């Protein structure tokens, strides 16, 4: 069972136009995490969905060329590192784990909290985005017999 590619011009053109806006909206959801619905996880899923749409419309082999497995795994680890790093920095500067206002930044407590939450959300978003893309390529490649070997 080989790999299929959507030939419809409508689907290809609309996807090419939509993908940047999907990514922009994902970043919007991540950055506005504390004041609007959604947050790091949801924005990460939206960011990963843009790559899933690319993989569905343009075929899996082109999607594999766009992203590399090594970089995705590094991004997953980097997100967890950012999350736990901010938590541990809070502990080192005298607070509890993820007690946001204990970071010794040269701004007042509210802004310190907002900046720390932004960093944590960015970490979660990176991890979820990379994990979503990697899971999609694993599962879709398993189905059509183009496994992970040549990625």
């Amino acid at each position, binding site marked *: 069972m080989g790999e*299929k590619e*959507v030939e419809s011009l409508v689907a290809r053109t609309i*996807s090419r136009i939509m993908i940047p806006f999907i990514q922009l909206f994902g970043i919007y959801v991540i950055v506005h995490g504390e004041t609007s*619905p959604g947050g790091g996880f949801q924005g990460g899923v*939206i960011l990963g*969905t843009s790559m899933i749409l690319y993989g*569905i419309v343009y075929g899996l082999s082109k999607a594999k060329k766009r992203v590399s497995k090594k970089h995705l795994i590094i991004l997953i680890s980097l997100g967890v590192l950012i999350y736990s790093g901010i938590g541990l920095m809070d502990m080192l500067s005298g607070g509890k784990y993820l007690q946001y206002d204990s970071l010794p930044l040269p701004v007042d407590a509210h802004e310190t909290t907002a900046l720390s939450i932004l960093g944590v959300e960015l970490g979660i978003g990176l991890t979820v985005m990379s994990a979503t893309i990697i899971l999609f390529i694993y599962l*879709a490649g398993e*189905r*059509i017999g183009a496994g992970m070997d040549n990625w």
Partner: protein
Amino acid sequence: MMQEIFEYTTLCLLATTLLCLYRAIVGPEPWDRAIAINVVGTKTIIIVVLIGYLFDSLYFVDVAIVYALFNFILTVALSKQIEFGGL
């Protein structure tokens, strides 16, 4: 005035969504099901925006945009699944 109009619009859309659901379950061909699911998604977007107006909250527009996004991707993936039998 506008409140009642939007309430009754939401109820009518909910009632017609049930008809689309019937078509999605019974539909003899896969394409009927795909189009029915697409229409249900579109109605859901409008219902979410109307509920956002009724609750006087702008956040529902974000939810509606995400729903439209995933509805589009769902339709593309479903059509590909029906036509090729896989990704």
